[in-house]
């Protein structure tokens, strides 16, 4: 994880009406790093994550992913997105497609892989996330945890350089959270660069290299999980942690 910076965010600001969602945020993610972003709701953490693959367009500032400026002309945006996998809070599997087709579609359409090649990749990934038997199922037939694991497999099928997770376990029943976190921990252990917006302390302790605490559109403090959770420097951080750690 001592690589170069794969994501560079410089002075990014974003305003929704009167709300300043992001206020001059700068942040770098190194290749192989697992970064967690925590903070109260409305702190701008999801907005920041979505700026990385241009689902949100910053009002000002720069986002560079693997040497490509994301903020500019539309021409390169699809290429950047193909290199950045994203996992959503509400899974967002395509309900009209089978699990197999969910994983194969973008491989064929964006990566121009053959059907056979895509299916082979899909099967490997379903093994990896532990649900090979669901290959012909439709999303509505799966539990939340299974859906989220398929969503992770779908993103991984593009062989992304970075994976973004936007509260991947918030919409799950408690007993399904672990199966998703296990997949994420494995992924982190393999050296995937990950940016995770989540409050799962277990994941933070087991897998995260750095935890970033955001509030009111700003980064308040950041550091290794043991420092940030063990000895937070700012009052705002202490207050937040006391609330979520009970």
């Amino acid at each position, binding site marked *: 994880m001592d690589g170069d910076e794969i994501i560079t965010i410089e002075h990014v600001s974003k305003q929704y009406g009167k709300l300043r969602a992001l206020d001059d945020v700068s942040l770098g993610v190194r290749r192989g790093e697992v970064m967690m972003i925590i903070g109260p709701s409305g702190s701008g953490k999801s907005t920041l994550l979505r700026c990385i*693959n241009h*689902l949100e367009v910053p009002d000002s500032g720069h986002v560079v992913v693997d040497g490509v400026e994301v903020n500019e002309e539309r021409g390169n945006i*699809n*290429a950047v*997105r*193909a*290199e*950045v*996998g*994203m996992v*959503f809070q*509400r899974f*967002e*599997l*395509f*309900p*009209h497609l089978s699990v197999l087709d969910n994983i194969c*579609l*973008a491989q064929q*359409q*964006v990566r121009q892989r053959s059907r056979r090649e895509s299916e082979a990749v899909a099967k490997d990934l379903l093994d990896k996330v532990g649900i090979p038997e669901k290959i012909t199922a*439709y*999303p*509505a037939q799966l539990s939340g945890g299974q859906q989220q694991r398929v*969503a992770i497999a*779908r*993103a991984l099928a*593009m062989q992304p350089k970075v994976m973004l997770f936007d509260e991947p376990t918030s919409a799950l029943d408690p007993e399904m959270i672990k199966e998703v976190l296990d997949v994420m921990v494995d992924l982190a252990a393999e050296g995937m660069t990950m940016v995770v917006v989540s409050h799962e302390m277990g994941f933070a302790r087991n897998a995260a290299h750095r935890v970033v605490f955001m509030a009111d559109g700003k980064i308040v403090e950041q550091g290794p999980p043991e420092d940030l959770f063990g000895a937070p420097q700012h009052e705002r951080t202490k207050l937040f942690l006391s609330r979520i750690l009970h």
Partner: protein
Amino acid sequence: MAGTRSDVQLTRRRMAWSRHLDTVPWWLVIVLAAGALVLFSMLSNERYVNALSYLIRGVRLTVFISVVSYLVALVLGLIAGLGRVSRNKLINTIATLYVEVVRGVPLLVIIIYAHYVVAPFLGTNRQPVFSGIMALSFGYGAYLAEVFRAGIESIERGQGEAARSLGMSYRQSMRYIILPQAIRRVLPPLGNDFVAMLKDSSLVSAIAISELTKLGQIEAARTFDTFRTYNAVAFLYLTLTLILSLGVRYLERISSVGRR
């Protein structure tokens, strides 16, 4: 004890029966029975038989005009609907203009316009059927555009975001993710508009197309039997629209299978 058990069984059986009765589409049973009765009494009356045998040619033309116009309207509506959700200002403006202007003008006026203004210009004024199809598809295209737009906008934003985050272009995400779901969702209103168009196709009688309504007018003028002639006309329209409604229901049922 034995008596009690058989009582329970009897009640159960009765409940099962009443559940069956609840699932019967009673409106259809009544319509079919009334229809059979009407058809029977018509066929045993010579004047009705004459009217029906004359009108049946009009049914063929009505169905032809409706089907062709509807297919063209589907294409027009899909294009205009996509234009309505486009972020391209020019495309969006053209599509909105089309929808708002056409929806604000009575279909009959569009039909007359098509035949007496557009057709002479195109040199097709000897083919009123062509004018009729042109007008119906142009008019209904605007309605269907709104149906498609509503369908596209009803798909959760996250679906498009998921597709885009995988690197798909706007066009790819529309084609493979948004439209397949949107079209499934708007099948019922699309079907209803087909039924509506079949009825509105009677308006092309105004430009001397011998479809069902026009033949009804001719027959009524010839026999002075307005009552029976239009009974027969209404009966034939109702038969067509009922068959279509049943088709729409069936489509609705199969398209809702496997949905969340």
